[in-house]
């Protein structure tokens, strides 16, 4: 097995979210999968990168554009013991965003910290 990190990955699965919330079903398909992993007590780590960071903006509301608002599900993550939620700081900056505009309980990481954290996982699925 080829590792992308310098050390052996210790953590389980990471879900890497790179899509805007409502332009495709990627974001919802990813959170659906996250909750299933959580229900098996194999809580995944969630990573938000590129347009994926847009999913975490507080008070966005898909219902206003007639799309089922799965982003409400983010507030349920802790019930599934999903506590590792990482956001790329650079992706936020590129979109004129900062942490105060995001939902609570997310950790903003520099590019380097973000990639190191991602590489510490054995498996990654990208949405």
């Amino acid at each position, binding site marked *: 097995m080829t590792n992308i990190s310098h050390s052996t990955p210790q953590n389980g699965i990471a879900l890497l979210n790179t899509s805007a919330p409502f332009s495709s079903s990627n974001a919802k398909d990813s959170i659906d999968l996250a909750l*299933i992993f959580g229900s098996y007590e194999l809580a995944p780590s969630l990573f938000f990168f590129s347009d994926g960071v847009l999913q975490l903006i507080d008070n966005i509301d898909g219902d206003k554009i007639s799309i089922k608002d799965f982003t409400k599900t983010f507030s349920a993550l802790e019930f599934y013991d999903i506590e590792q939620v990482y956001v790329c700081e650079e992706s936020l900056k590129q979109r004129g965003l900062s942490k105060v505009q995001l939902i609570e309980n997310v950790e903003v990481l520099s590019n380097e910290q973000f990639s190191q954290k991602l590489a510490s996982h054995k498996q990654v699925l990208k949405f």
Partner: protein
Amino acid sequence: MTKLAVVVTTPPHSNLTTTAIDYITNAIELGVDVIGVFFYQDGVLNASEHLSLPNDEYQTIAHWQALHSDHNVPLFLCITAAEKRGLSDEIESQMSQSNMLSTFTIAGLGELVELSAKTDKLVQF
């Protein structure tokens, strides 16, 4: 023997699906134990019985069938994603019947969790 699980999210007409099949075929030749392929998102369309690709293009669906029949590779599909895309395995009335290839096993996302837990390596296309 190294265990491999594959997640396919691309439809039959995508070249990435062709690459997935090539990858799995080569892995089998190298002695890797392919414990399952899980079809999610548009990947479920690979189970569509009535889908036909032009004769001179790569026949993804026939190749999935061959992987299953020749090498016993389990093909799991997410039923929720499939139903969203017009696939059905149920004969609910005389008007509707299955349009899903029987080589695919109907599953939920829990199957993907189990593959993830059992495998040495998980690869997504």
